[in-house]
């Protein structure tokens, strides 16, 4: 039986999920203007994992992410204005316009970076955790990635090394069942679950429902306490589902790669709908409060979009800037 998150955390998680959803819905709308000219991977439908995990983290603790990183960036407290400006390629973007949606960063918020080469940030996050060992500073790192990354050799190399040195790192796998359009059962054996790979490396490994924020919060809490307390790495597999196409703002039902009924089943398990209903039933939030949250978020997004649109592009001399660090 899942324990429910404390009321203040629950409110924060609902707000966090709504904020990610609304930001992405706004990006979805704005993307059609063809001014955000970078490949963009939406997290809609997968918000609970990012929010449930990051609800435990301090601002100083670190995370890394991959191509589908908006939810992680926002859940960790990444600056919204700088994120939208980055999608517009503006100088005020979090990567000064040089990265785009696939290269978000916000060091002040502990967001070390996201890159779209699948699996690549796993060892980098483990390296940040090695830094903790070498600096005698037990600061935690959480590494977010998808099911596809668990097929890359570097995932196993990294987990093995983290286990050898009992590094303070939690690996979070969002298993959304597809790598682009290729289903999991074409890529991994049906009779073996992903989290069992991590068990094979001798680390704490759990599998849980990634669409229930309370479940994510509880399971992540155990893993994070384990890693923070010197118990070594932990691995979490959360089952969840991507609503939109792999890359871009559109639905892709017409492509026919999802089995009949699958999409509808997951849609009925919308993490935000699910959580809003539960918190209403528990009298943690009232309808008016949810509406007020939505309004505040919309205002925040309006401001960020206006900021991003009004920001100048980088000047031409920035082409050669940052080739080498001083």
């Amino acid at each position, binding site marked *: 039986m899942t324990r429910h998150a404390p009321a203040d955390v629950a409110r924060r998680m609902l707000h966090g999920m709504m904020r990610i959803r609304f930001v992405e819905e706004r990006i979805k709308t704005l993307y059609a203007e063809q001014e955000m000219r970078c490949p963009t991977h939406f997290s809609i439908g997968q918000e609970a994992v990012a929010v449930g995990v990051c609800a435990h983290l301090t601002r100083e603790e670190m995370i890394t992410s991959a191509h589908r990183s908006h939810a992680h960036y926002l859940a960790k407290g990444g600056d919204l204005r700088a994120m939208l400006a980055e999608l517009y390629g503006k100088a005020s*973007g*979090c*990567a*000064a*316009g*040089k*990265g785009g949606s696939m*290269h978000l*960063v916000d*060091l002040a918020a502990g967001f*070390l*970076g996201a*890159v779209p*080469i699948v699996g*690549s*940030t*796993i*060892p*980098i*996050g*483990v*390296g*940040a*955790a*090695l*830094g*903790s*060992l*070498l*600096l005698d500073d037990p600061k935690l*790192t959480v590494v977010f990635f998808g099911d596809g990354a668990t097929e890359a*050799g*570097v995932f196993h*190399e*990294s987990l*093995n*090394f983290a286990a*050898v040195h009992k590094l303070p790192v939690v690996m979070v796998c969002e298993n959304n069942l597809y790598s682009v359009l290729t289903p999991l059962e074409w890529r991994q054996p049906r009779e073996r679950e992903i989290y069992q790979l991590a068990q094979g490396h001798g680390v704490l490994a759990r599998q849980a429902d990634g669409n229930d924020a309370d479940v994510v919060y509880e399971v992540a809490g155990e893993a994070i306490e384990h890693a923070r307390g010197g118990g070594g790495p932990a691995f979490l597999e959360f089952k969840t589902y991507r609503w939109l196409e792999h890359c871009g703002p559109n639905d892709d039902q017409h492509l026919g790669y999802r089995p009949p009924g699958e999409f509808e089943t997951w849609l009925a398990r919308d993490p935000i709908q699910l959580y809003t209903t539960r918190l209403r039933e528990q009298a943690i939030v009232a309808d008016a409060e949810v509406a007020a949250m939505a309004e505040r978020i919309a205002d925040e997004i309006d401001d960020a979009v206006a900021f991003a649109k009004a920001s100048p592009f980088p000047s031409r001399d920035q082409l050669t*800037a*940052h*080739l*080498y*660090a*001083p």
Partner: protein
Amino acid sequence: MTAEGPPTVTRQLKFVQALNEALDLCMAKDPRVFVMGLGAPDAAAIFGSTRGLVEKYGRKRVLDTPVAENAMTGVALGAALRGMRPVMTHIRLEFAMLAIDQIVNQAAKWHYMFGGRAAVPLVIRMVVGRGWGQGPQHSQSLQSWFAHVPGLKVVMPATPHDAKGLLISAIEDNNPVVFIEHRWLYNIHGPVPEGVYRVPLGRPNVLRRGRHVTVAAISYMTLEATRAADELAKEGIELEVVDIRTLNPFDETLVLESVRKTGHLIVADTGWRSVGFAAEVVSRIVEQGLADLKQPPVRLTSPDIPTPTTRALSNYYYPLVSDISATARRLLGRPAKPEPEIKPDALLDAPDSTFSGPF
């Protein structure tokens, strides 16, 4: 030597000792510096280059690693993001190939693609093998690959003095530096000052002054070029040997100045011929100094074939001192000398009589 000048350095160290001293000094003065690599703390100590470090600094700072080059390079990058200054070591350059994603996609671009928000102070040492049958996968000199990638620095020292001074500069640099060491330089002796000194990255060096032919050389070929210079001096031919030292960023100024004086250019590289670094040197000189050239420039490189293991074939694979000398004579219109006869069983697969296998 004037009274104000630097004291004459009399202390002779081997190239490998110079590397070892650079690591030791950097670790002593900066607790953020640590060494990692398969076998870094083991008894063989990467041909001696990491000798004594684990006893002094412990296993955390001289970190042995799993056979997981790609992940370990990412781990080094991640540690660098925490302010550490990792020095990775690959006992053969080929092993770094497993980490091309982390080196090329990640480390090289991290500073740029995040708009300068973070820096990656990371040194990746790679040893290029030669001889004693190192063969196709233990003797590749792939500096051109790395030098092609913006954001990486690529360094290839040729003398004990530069091995130490360049390694210290590389460790203190805030960027990923690929530091390529040729195995046949490890036992070379040369003057090495005590204490910390730096040889700046990005600056070639005129190793030998001469009026007649410029030899722009890289790594071990620099040593071969000075040997050719000795040989040709007896015939009144003066080679000017420019040691490239840093391939990225490459500053061609010294080579241009030299060619302006000599009118002749030989580029001697340890890598392959096609699309190799020697072609880059030639291009830059042709683009900017064509009028100074009296003859077409010449590349002396390995041929475009994998390295064979048997000495019966590898004896005909590497360019030799005699090739540099013969090329210089030809450029100057001097009569050719008979080429030395190389027998298939000749022992050209060792740099000197002290060298024995297996590595």
